[in-house]
């Protein structure tokens, strides 16, 4: 077991290195002289040749790419992503400042979608091919097809413009009313695919022999589904949910922009517009690392949660 854990951690390292290299190389994609372009963005005017030369040495662009990469990576590991080109503050400060708003939206949405997806998924598995199953299928197809940014605007139109019930934009300094529309918008698209996944996992378990045995013993259907099948189905479901961080991050960008929510998603978009690329670079890097780490933690947790998993060698 210990060997498996070490092996699994070692396996994650090449991916992490790859993610870091890809994020690092972003700033070197500028054609011609990146230093000149960067200096133009920072100073806002056409720099002279001497200024460019000085700046190049200052940010280390005169060194070989690999040396620059190692330098960047050793800083990034300690959370130092350099200084923002437009704000003059460390990139990490900007990210930490925006993190709480994102986290609030993130966890609320995750919890609500998880609850709804489980309930709807279980119902449509139990009542397979009945009305509720068809309803859930249509619901989840709409969920993946309707653009969240459009749904957000439609909800704003209904609840803020027409009914004056809820605030349309902004964070509202923790006022929960501001959280309602973004969470509904985001959950709708997020739980769509999850509902289908819960359904198919549960159906697969329900078709197994032990379920037949349980039923033959005369157990109540409720017990068979909830105590026996669902417990086993939970393993792939939890994996799927934890690995869907991607959908959450992608959704967060659109929803935060629609509702002017001051989180990391809108920070990313604002930074692209302000050409503040160190911030963009850091966000690309961190979102990749987040995925790899969650992936790793979930895998390792299984060795604890599921006694059936025994890793050889």
């Amino acid at each position: 077991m210990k060997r498996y854990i070490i092996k699994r951690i070692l396996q994650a390292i090449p991916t992490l290195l790859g993610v870091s290299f890809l994020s690092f190389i972003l700033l070197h994609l500028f054609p011609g002289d990146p230093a000149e372009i960067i200096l133009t963005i920072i100073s806002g005017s056409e720099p002279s040749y001497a200024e460019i030369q000085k700046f190049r040495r200052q940010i280390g662009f005169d060194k070989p790419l690999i040396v620059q990469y190692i330098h960047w990576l050793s800083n990034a590991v300690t959370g130092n992503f350099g200084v923002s080109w437009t704000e003059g503050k460390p990139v990490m400060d900007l990210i930490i400042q925006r993190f709480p708003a994102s986290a609030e939206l993130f966890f609320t949405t995750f919890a609500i979608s998880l609850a709804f997806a489980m309930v709807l998924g279980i119902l449509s598995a139990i009542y397979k091919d009945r009305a509720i199953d068809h309803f859930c299928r249509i619901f989840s197809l709409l969920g993946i097809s309707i653009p969240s940014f459009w749904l957000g605007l439609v909800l704003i139109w209904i609840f803020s413009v027409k009914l004056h019930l809820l605030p349309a934009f902004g964070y509202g300094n923790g006022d929960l009313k501001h959280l309602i529309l973004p969470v509904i918008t985001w959950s709708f698209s997020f739980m769509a695919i999850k509902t289908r996944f819960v359904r198919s996992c549960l159906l697969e378990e329900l078709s197994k022999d032990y379920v037949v045995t349980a039923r033959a013993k005369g157990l109540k259907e409720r017990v068979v589904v909830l105590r026996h099948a669902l417990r086993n189905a939970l393993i792939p479901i939890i994996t799927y949910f934890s690995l869907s961080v991607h959908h959450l991050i992608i959704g967060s960008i659109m929803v935060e922009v629609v509702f002017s929510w001051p989180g990391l998603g809108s920070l990313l978009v604002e930074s692209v517009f302000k050409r503040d690329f160190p911030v963009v670079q850091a966000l690309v890097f961190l979102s990749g690392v987040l995925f790899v780490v969650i992936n790793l933690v979930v895998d390792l947790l299984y060795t604890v949660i599921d006694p059936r998993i025994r890793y050889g060698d």
Partner: protein
Amino acid sequence: MRVLVTKMKLNLNKHVNTKILRNRLCLTGLLILATIAVMGLLAPLAGDPYRTNMAERLKPPSFEHLFGTDQLGRDVFSRVVWGARTSMLIALTISAISMSFGCLVGAISGYFGGIVDDVIGRIIDVFLAIPELVFNIALVGIFCVAYGASIWNVILAIVVTNWVSYARVTRSIVLSLKEREFVLCERAIGAGEWYILLRHVIPNAVGPIVVLATLNMGNVIMTIASLGFLGLGIQPPTPEWGQMINSGKDYITTAPWLTFFPGLFIALAVLGFNLFGEGLRDILESRGFVE
């Protein structure tokens, strides 16, 4: 033996065709897509999407302007119809490029195995780790600064993340195909590896890849629209659904039709591809073509 294989394929095609017509999901999806395709093709009949008319600003839907007019007095209906052409053409270009590249990389990785497979597998892992839209946004931003705004920025930025799913799926199919009898048979006859790969392995992977491509078209259309909405996609005045919603959102209190209609068509297009793709998968699954 080749004749036999061709004959089997023909039968399969006939079978799939009739199944598509019987499968309700597939048929609905196909109808939606056909409508949008016809819209795109007949766009010139819908009028000029660029003609501004300041006297007719922000007019609500009427017989003259079915979807109303926008802040510059342009006809929203003709912009939505032309938008179908923009979205479809760009999505097809992106899919074609990423499919050819991704399938080739995946096939090479799965077929040749060894260190090639290890390296390509790692690269795929890295691309899967970064959320696509985050990477798309970063790339579009950088391309814009580097090369100036152009449609190709959007295409390139999406291709960079989109080829991965094709590579992954092709790789796993090829892995399962390469030890099958018909491949061993060809090899025994003395066929070259590349010939076997291109002539026998890839054609057999077509079913699952078509399903993937259909579902993926929906994703690509959504990504184009999302970038458009963020103001990073196709730039105005070219009509594009996401970008139309972006410029219409400031008028949501007075002219909600500016955001409503383009969004409806994004949803329809994505729904069409999802329905068609899911239906196709059902059909191929029942034939044992997709696991």
